[in-house]
């Protein structure tokens, strides 16, 4: 109880409240601009968090990412261009509603169910994290190894791309993490005699390059999005309560799916939205209405992607394994601020954990008024020409990377990873898998080598300990899943096509 009060006191400090408000506005604006994703918003925030108190630093990341995931719905609904990848699953549906003259309803649905999903996801975090922390205390390097590998496998599964290419991306990330002296022998590895490489590749410049610089590059290679027609909005929140009652069951399903996908290491909001939208269509009583401007899928997927955001912090806080690309960044900030992830975080720093929960709830509550303002201002924000935004993003890439270590080498790394990310994306190699590989590489290697040394080079303890056995089985399933899906697809394809009523 004392911890809870202490948590409230921590959040109630002026700098934290200002950080929440400012980063919320920042998240809303960045998320609503097409091409600028929630991950990018978070990556560019990191240099700012260096100078904040620990709680304020975490607060900026939580509020900016939650707002960005919601506001990605806005251009999706109005322009048919998803603002963030997490909105892509239902962009067509939302745009169809706009064409039917129901833009308010579609945007309101996105806003209301984002907030509901965020709050329910937070509650799941509150309930699950301490319970899992008990279990996690028994984990040894074998279990950590499998958890990390499972996270990497999930990252390859969620990519809507060739699984082979996704695994290749992940391996590339792991290879990058091999660079430097942090290895079992402490010897310089793959450094080519460069002193700058001795410390290894910092994840942040790589993230900024892959997610932010490559976006500036893409902007130069593509056409301008169409201008947004001016429109007057009616009441945004009207009818949302009725929708909540009608689609109560899909909403809960969306929340639960979002929570599960969020907890899975490596899988995040994008995946949650795609799965939930597909599920909603599959189990709907009126699947034929999907795609014609039907709010049911929006309810389910909108709740799902925000729910996954909060539960994605479960593996991040407990094991230091990112639940998605956003928490991959957050973990770095947690370490920097002395909130080292691990099960003991919940016993030794309980008040900070309560503060974190409170920030989540608070961010999802203020999302509603701020979101309404944002929707009304969207016409102006979306009118800002790319020619004025992209140069600023480029400068923020340079300065942000420089700020991480005050050296120019990081700036070069941003350029390098920007090119890598751009070329990979163009050729169907998912970049999220690359990034998770870079972030988790040293953990995978360390737990693997430690385990091997402990077991005297025997691989048996990797599978015969109860928890590690289960984790190994899930990982194997994740690896074999694409093969199964491929076989299944081949079988159905050889069958004669079903007669469908036109």
């Amino acid at each position, binding site marked *: 109880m004392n911890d809870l009060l202490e948590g409230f006191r921590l959040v109630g400090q002026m700098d934290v409240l200002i950080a929440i408000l400012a980063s919320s506005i920042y998240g809303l604006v960045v998320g609503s601009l097409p091409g600028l994703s929630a991950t990018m918003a978070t990556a560019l925030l990191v*240099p700012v968090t260096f100078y904040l108190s620990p709680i304020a630093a975490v607060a900026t990341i939580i509020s900016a990412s939650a707002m960005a995931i919601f506001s990605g719905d806005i251009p999706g609904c109005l322009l048919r261009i998803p603002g963030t990848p997490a909105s892509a699953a239902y962009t067509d549906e939302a745009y169809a509603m706009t064409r039917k003259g129901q833009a308010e309803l579609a945007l309101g649905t996105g806003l209301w169910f984002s907030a509901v999903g965020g709050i329910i996801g937070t509650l799941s975090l509150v309930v699950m994290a301490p319970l899992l922390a008990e279990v996690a205390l028994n984990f040894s390097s074998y279990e950590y190894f499998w958890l990390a590998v499972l996270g990497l496998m999930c990252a390859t599964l969620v990519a809507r791309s060739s699984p082979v290419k996704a695994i*290749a991306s992940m391996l590339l990330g792991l290879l990058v993490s091999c660079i430097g002296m942090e290895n079992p022998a402490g010897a310089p590895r793959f450094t080519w005699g460069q002193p700058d490489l001795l410390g290894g590749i910092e994840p942040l410049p790589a993230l900024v390059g892959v997610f932010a610089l490559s976006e500036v*590059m893409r902007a130069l290679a593509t056409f301008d999005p169409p201008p947004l027609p001016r429109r007057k909005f009616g009441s945004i929140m009207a009818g949302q309560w009725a929708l909540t009652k009608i689609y109560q069951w899909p909403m809960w399903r969306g929340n639960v799916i979002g929570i599960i996908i969020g907890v899975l290491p490596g899988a995040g909001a994008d995946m949650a939205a795609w799965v939930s939208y597909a599920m909603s269509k599959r189990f709907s009583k009126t699947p034929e209405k999907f795609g014609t401007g039907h709010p049911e899928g929006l309810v389910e997927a909108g709740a799902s992607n925000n729910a996954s955001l909060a539960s994605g912090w479960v593996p991040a806080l407990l094991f230091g394994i990112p639940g998605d690309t956003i928490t991959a960044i957050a973990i770095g900030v947690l370490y920097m601020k002395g909130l080292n992830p691990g099960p003991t975080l919940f016993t030794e720093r309980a008040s900070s954990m309560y503060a974190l929960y409170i920030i989540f709830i608070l961010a999802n509550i203020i999302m509603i008024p701020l979101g309404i303002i944002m929707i009304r201002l969207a016409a102006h924000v979306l009118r800002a020409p790319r020619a004025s935004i992209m140069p600023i993003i480029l400068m923020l890439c*340079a300065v942000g990377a420089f700020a991480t270590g005050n050296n120019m080498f990081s700036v070069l790394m941003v350029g390098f990873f920007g090119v890598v990310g*751009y*070329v990979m994306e163009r050729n169907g190699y998912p970049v999220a898998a690359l990034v998770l590989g870079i972030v988790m590489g040293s953990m995978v290697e360390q737990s693997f*080598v430690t385990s*091997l*040394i402990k077991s005297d080079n025997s691989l048996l303890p990797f599978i015969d300990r109860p928890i590690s056995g289960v984790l190994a089985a899930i990982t194997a399933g994740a690896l074999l899943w*694409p093969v199964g899906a491929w076989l299944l697809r081949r079988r159905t394809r050889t069958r004669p096509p079903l007669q469908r009523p036109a």
Partner: protein
Amino acid sequence: MQLSDRVTGGFLVALGGVAVYGASLQPGVPGQDVGPSVFPTIIGLGLIGCGLLILLRVGHSFEAPDDVIPAAPGEALPQPPRFAEIRAFIPPLLLVFYTLVADWLGFLPTAAVMVLVVALALGARWRLALPLAVLAPLGIATIFMKLLRVPLPDGILPLPW
């Protein structure tokens, strides 16, 4: 830069080979079988395997057609700009430019050049690009140097306040 699966797959095989070779050069840890070479060897072998599978176009059917949303009926997709593939490499080249000249030219002039180039490349008029090239670096420098205390290079033109 759209490359064929043959090129990217071949590159991965080569990179995997280099990784395995590089790993074999790593010094061992005395009295211990697992050293710094184990992990890169496994990754290298994995990359070779993936590269070969990509060369054989395994898993190609899983690739989503494209992230670009198809045009709505009755709407034509505008053509991408000319030299799109070359233009895309302007931003990383500008970052190289930044690392080369920022230390003696200073943050403000270097950033102004970069902002101007990107804005003009994106089709901004001079009316927008010039004020942006003056104001954006000033704003960023103020936030990062004064508030966040990042030592950006002063060069020939320090921040006036």
